[in-house]
């Protein structure tokens, strides 16, 4: 009896796939365009750079000219070439650390939320310890001992960000355990891991995406700061964070050497943020009517 729908109702609520819904959001679209553009720039940048990023092309802190479009840096190297080549580290390290912290954090959160008991107590309290331990101290310690290897830096970022993700996702998952569809799954004897993957995980996807965007920005921030204080990527490699720190003293005479890498970091962060926020909104809209 409820089969009869008027034509416009049918068109209005015609099912569309999740990806298409995401793409329909202006925010997501701009975010994707920005991120793709940045990634393309970072990947082909080193090949189109006019000079070798490590070679001096003029006097230090020379103003922009026909030779060096964005001027030169503290050692007389071409800023444009260094900006074009300097995203490689950040471009893979930031997304990888953000993704890892969200995946590990969510896994810990969902498992502890579902099983409670001892697993919960042990895992969550260890995370609290991690959360309380100053991340920067840990970084200084580890980098001093093992040297600034990219893998280690990623691991440190993950260790810093993951407990926060776990807290948020756990908070989102616990109310779901009293939802009728989870009770139903328990009542028909669905195994725990299946409930976690099929019932809980899809329903924390909005906070997960928000976390992903947020943590991407954070990783960019942390990685750049590590470079800035000299515990990240080491000179003479070109790196945006490092460039900010190297050319800080010349900010008055040659601001482009600092502003250009900062602009790149900002654009990169905004792209992730737009996608995350747009996606969260789209999902909230789909769910909100329920």
């Amino acid at each position, binding site marked *: *009896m*409820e*089969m*009869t729908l*008027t034509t*416009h*109702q049918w068109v209005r*609520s015609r*099912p569309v796939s999740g990806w298409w819904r995401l793409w329909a959001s202006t925010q997501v679209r701009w975010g994707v365009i920005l991120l793709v553009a940045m990634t393309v720039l970072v990947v082909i940048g080193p090949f189109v750079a006019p000079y070798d990023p490590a070679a001096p092309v003029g006097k230090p802190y020379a103003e922009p000219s026909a030779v060096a479009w964005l001027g030169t840096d503290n050692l007389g190297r071409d800023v444009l070439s260094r900006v074009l080549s300097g995203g490689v580290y950040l471009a893979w390290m930031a997304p990888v650390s953000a993704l890892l912290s969200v995946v590990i954090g969510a896994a810990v959160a969902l498992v502890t939320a579902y099983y409670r008991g001892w697993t919960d107590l042990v895992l969550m309290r260890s995370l609290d310890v991690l959360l309380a331990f100053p991340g920067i101290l840990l970084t200084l310690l580890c980098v001093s001992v093992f040297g600034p290897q990219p893998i280690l830096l990623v691991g440190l970022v993950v260790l810093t960000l993951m407990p926060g993700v776990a807290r948020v996702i756990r908070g989102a998952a616990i109310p779901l355990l009293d*939802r*009728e*569809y989870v*009770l*139903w*799954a*328990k*009542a*028909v*004897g*669905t195994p725990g891991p299946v409930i976690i993957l*099929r*019932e809980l995980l*899809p*329903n924390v*996807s909005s906070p997960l995406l928000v976390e992903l965007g947020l943590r991407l920005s954070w990783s960019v921030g942390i990685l750049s700061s590590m470079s800035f204080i000299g515990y990240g990527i080491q000179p003479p490699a070109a790196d945006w964070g490092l460039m900010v720190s190297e050319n800080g003293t010349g900010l008055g005479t040659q601001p482009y050497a600092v502003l250009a890498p900062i602009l790149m970091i900002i654009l990169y962060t905004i792209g992730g943020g737009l996608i995350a926020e747009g996606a969260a909104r789209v999902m909230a809209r*789909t*769910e*909100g*009517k*329920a």
Partner: protein
Amino acid sequence: MTMVLKASGLTVERADGAPIIEDVSLGLDRGEVMGIVGESGSGKSTLALALLAYARRGVRIAGGSVRVADTNMLELDTATLRKARREVVAYVAQDPGAALNPMLTLGTLLTEGLAGSKAEKVVRAREILRKVGLPDDEAFLQRRPRQLSGGQQQRIAIAMAVIAKPKLIILDEPTTGLDVSTRAKVLDLIRQLCISDDLTAIYVSHDLAVIANVADHVTVMYGGQVVEQGTMQEVLATPRHPYTRALLNAVPSLQARQTLRPIRGRVPAVGEAPNGCIFSDRCDHAIEACNTRPALRLVGGTQVRCVRPELAEAFEVRPQAVGHSDRQVANNSAVLQADGVNAFYGHRQILFDVSLQVEPGRCLAVVGESGSGKSTLSRCLIGLHGNLTGALSLDGKPLPLTVDQRDRNARQRLQYIFQNPNASLNPRRTIGQSLAAALANRPEACGNRSGAIIAEAFERVGISPHLAMRYPAELSGGQRQRVAIARALVANPAVLLCDEVTSSLDVSVQASVIELLRSLLADGLGMLFVTHDLAVVRNIADTVAVLSAGRVIEQGDVYKVLSAPSHPYTQSLLANTLQLPTEAIDVPTIARRQSAAGSR
């Protein structure tokens, strides 16, 4: 007689210009109660808020006027309006638990908006507490809302509304979440305030029986329009609009088991109303002339928006009595049996020595008020409540008490349907996927036949299989509940445990779900139906167990228990169940209201 409320041509629109309520006019004299009745999506709450000159975000009051006593509500500036909302029109929200700030004491809540010295305020607060039938001592004034029961909270909310002596009070579903006995008391209070204080009130409700018991006038809303308006007796006893009639036909009766007529289709969403008469696409009596929108006109004492405002007799639609399923059950054929079940929360015992049995093709109703343990009982049976003792058996074999210890077969044979259709389906799965997930627990039915089984289950509950790609958010509440039933059916169950499955649905939708469940009973399924609504019990159950404070106090055949209850508690439950004026089908006498409100 002074006219307190005069609203005319009130129109509320969404930002894109689609009307939510259209051209609504109301008039109310001092001391009268106007009931506004309609199903969800009819615009009745929007109307109630518009009378306060309030519109939700993204919505605006586009036209019309609201005059309360001497105040023109729609033409006030912000500061005056705020004052008017306290002193001229007051509002009581549906859920007092959410409407009262839990951190404030009752004294503060009551006197918040009053002027005057502290001593005067306290005197006023005590006076109002006595009036609404609550204690007025200092200790009570120091309590906070969460220390009160739901009924007491609603009394406080009403006291807060009347303490500033407003000219008009708007009650938005004030008794909806309450138990029958509490509801009866709150309704008594409202009636009494109408007499003692000459209170003028708008009472918004989806429950026709409540409206019949409290209102002098009734306005029936549908799709944002007034479809019928008149005195309570005329509208509810001799309805002239097909929608009013359909609504009344969908209400289950406490006296008789009869066919319930659901209204086909669904309420049009905002901006999607048909061009002609708003009800024409769901109306059984629609004719050519219904393609132009009828105006509200006076027919035999009521305002009706219909081109064929004839009485029900003209269409010869009378409710028909239906019998119980004729399966005669031999002794010991129970499919599900519980013996001496005791259940606990921590050290607190919830259920005491509960024994019952569910037979195939028959429905056992478990009736009780909130806190009686009826939901705990159904959770014990499905095995989700771990802390219990006693014995369960399924098909004559002992059934382990918790779901982890049960075998696959037992889990499939018992299926549970939840109260809240909005949360019983995973919102991130299409309904087809939800059914497929249920079928995955039945390995023998997987593979090639799974698609056919799912389609069959959808057909069985009246959901078109081509809706399988939809997400729950894209369905109406009634459709979701049907999908939840379909999900239970794919498991090929022997017993359905239904926990208040119709209580969050509109009456017209409830009617269709009850009819569906009846047809499943006829297929031979056993059913345990947990509810607080005795009229629903009358219409679906064969046997009934009355639960009070965790004990079964009365158990037996429905017609015996409901016509001659032996326990005082059952008697009071029955006495407090409200009925429509046209309740008895064969005796169409109009029951007069027990207490006349107002000055007429």
